[in-house]
């Protein structure tokens, strides 16, 4: 009994080792290597580089689409030529034009549906779309041009009635431009050090102090998994039940494998008897078979029924005797296939060639088939 326990423990240990990168990624919640509050100077310099002073979100400044377009014309913005092409004449395009320029098909379809409503969108609907945009951004399937075009379409679809909503959408656009500028400035800082989940402790101490990795993990000589997927939304407490299920399944599997063969054989024999008993009952109760007076023809059709039950393949009414044999031949074990072929050929001779002598052989082969099925009912 020790062996299964050791196997289970080994399996558990392996799973835990595999989960380590996930748990480590959870501890370190901020983007690894990205400067945090502690490094005030670095943060300030970054803020200075990415800030758009004239449009700090103070709520005082008035913002309009022409000014957004002006900002988009900045040649230093890291926009691809295609994005720039998509955003051409940004402030003047119609809602339809804005929607049709969107490359993300799901987003375009959603906006087309909203456009098809032929009414002004409510604040809730706009918020839902904004949430959807955020989820697409997180998934990495949203390009800046698509996001800006979607926001432009939303502005047009909300009309000018709700001033605050209108301004919020403009600021959302501004945020997109800000993030683009931030990206540009980060790129100008030069390449960042390659920080994988398992880095020397010294470097990590420069980042967040609140979320530094526990010392014991940091000291472990763990291998790095550069290609190992990290699931940022999966927390460890969600994984615990799964872990339990895996452990129980592993233990059960190992125990079952250790069961002695005779006990399985007894179980199998019992199952065979039940199975064949059921098949016989089904063949016996078949109304179509009961109506056949010729014993040899009845033997053939009974064998067809038996084969149907054993293979699970139902004979189509338009399938000939040969077609049915060919259909199930590959599903039958060798001895049954040979016997059923004899029955089929016997039926053909008896019925279509008028060879009466072939009749008894059909019955004989059918009986043999039943006997073989009783010893081993699987096809």
């Amino acid at each position, binding site marked *: 009994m020790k062996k299964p326990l050791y196997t289970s423990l080994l399996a558990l240990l392996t799973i835990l080792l595999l989960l380590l990168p996930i748990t480590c990624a959870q501890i370190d919640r901020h983007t690894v290597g990205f400067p945090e509050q502690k490094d005030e100077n670095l943060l300030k310099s970054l803020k200075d580089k990415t800030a758009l002073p004239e449009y700090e979100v103070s709520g005082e400044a008035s913002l309009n689409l022409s000014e957004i377009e002006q900002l988009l014309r900045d040649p230093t913005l890291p926009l691809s030529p295609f994005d720039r092409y998509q955003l051409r004449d940004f402030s003047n395009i119609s809602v339809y034009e804005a929607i049709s320029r969107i490359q993300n098909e799901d987003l375009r379809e959603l906006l087309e549906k909203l456009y098809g409503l032929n009414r002004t969108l409510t604040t809730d609907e706009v918020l839902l779309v904004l949430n959807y945009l955020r989820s697409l951004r997180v998934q990495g399937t949203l390009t800046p041009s698509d996001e800006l075009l979607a926001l432009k379409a939303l502005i047009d679809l909300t009309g000018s009635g709700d001033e605050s909503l209108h301004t919020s959408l403009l600021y959302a656009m501004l945020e997109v431009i800000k993030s683009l500028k931030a990206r540009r400035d980060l790129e100008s800082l030069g390449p960042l050090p390659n920080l994988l989940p398992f880095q020397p402790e010294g470097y990590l101490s420069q980042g967040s102090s609140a979320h530094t990795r526990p010392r014991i993990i940091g000291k472990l000589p763990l291998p790095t998994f550069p290609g190992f997927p990290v699931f940022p939304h999966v927390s460890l407490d969600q994984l615990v039940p799964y872990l339990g299920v895996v452990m129980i399944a592993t233990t059960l599997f190992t125990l079952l494998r250790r069961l002695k063969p005779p006990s399985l054989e007894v179980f199998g024999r019992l199952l065979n008897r039940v199975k064949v008993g059921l098949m016989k009952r089904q063949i016996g109760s078949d109304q179509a078979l009961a109506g056949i007076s010729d014993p040899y*023809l009845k033997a053939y059709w009974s064998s067809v029924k038996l084969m149907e039950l054993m293979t699970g393949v139902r004979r189509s009414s338009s399938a*000939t005797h*040969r077609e049915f044999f060919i259909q199930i031949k590959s599903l039958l074990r060798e001895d049954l296939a040979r016997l059923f072929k004899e029955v089929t050929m016997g039926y053909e001779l008896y*019925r*279509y*060639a008028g060879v009466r002598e072939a009749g008894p052989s059909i019955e004989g082969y059918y009986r043999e088939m039943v006997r073989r099925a009783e010893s081993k009912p699987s096809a």
Partner: protein
Amino acid sequence: MSRVFSVVKRELIDKEILIEKELELKLIVVGLLSRGHILMEGVPGVAKTYTSKAIAKLLGLTFKRVQMTPDLLPSDIIGFYVYDQKTGSFVLRKGPIFTNILLVDEINRASPRTQSALLEAMQERQVTIEGEVYELEEPFIVIATENPIEMEGVFPLPEAQLDRFLLKIEARYPSKNGLITIMKRADEIEESIRTLKPMLTRDEVLEEIKIVRDIRVEDSVYEYVASIVEETRKHPAVRLGASPRAAIAIIKAAKAWAYIEGRTYVIPDDVKAVAPSVLVHRVLVKPELEIRGVSAKDIVLEILTKVPVPKP
């Protein structure tokens, strides 16, 4: 097994003289053994002539070919009397119809008048010239070809005349590998067909025709064929279903197929094997469905998967 088909198979298929033509050759032999005529549909250049010529040569039968044109007259096929100045009397000049295997190329190019004269001869197996009746020598089989894509300058065969063909065979393009073999062996194939020697005699062919006639057909097979033919008339996509002549044709062809397969009795599998070729030119699809791509072959195949085979 049929000696006719085994000779054809050995000399033409196994020796790769005709490549990927087994089914077509088998159906031609079915036509020959069941005394039926064959309509072969296929684009030019798919060895329709070679196939017919090779069979005729192998079986020791006479072979003639007529290229149909709109100006061809019935007498050009059947024959006519000409005045012989030496004897001072009219002598019969027999047309190409006096042969065992007649290949009628592009039958739909001939005028309806010539077509009907030919088809009448096919049905009656005799021709009348200047009031005198001449029996055609047995076996007599017409293999008529038509091009499925030509629409201009043709006279499509009327339904009643189509019904006189026992089978319609589609002469298909070979596969890519088959085509490569054909290209490599083109000269060899031509030479082989030219030098083919008869392997059987006309009498042996006639003997097999007699045997085929006596092949056993169980009553339930007749019922099965009747159900298939009836179903062609009930099918909602069909404008004109199969005639009783079609039912007879299925039985005849199934007998020949069974014999080729080495049996002296017909089973439903034989019916299924020949039914598409027998019915496809006899079942007419409703025009509105035809333009949507529904073909007679689709309908026949659907019917064959619906009609129950004989049960106890």
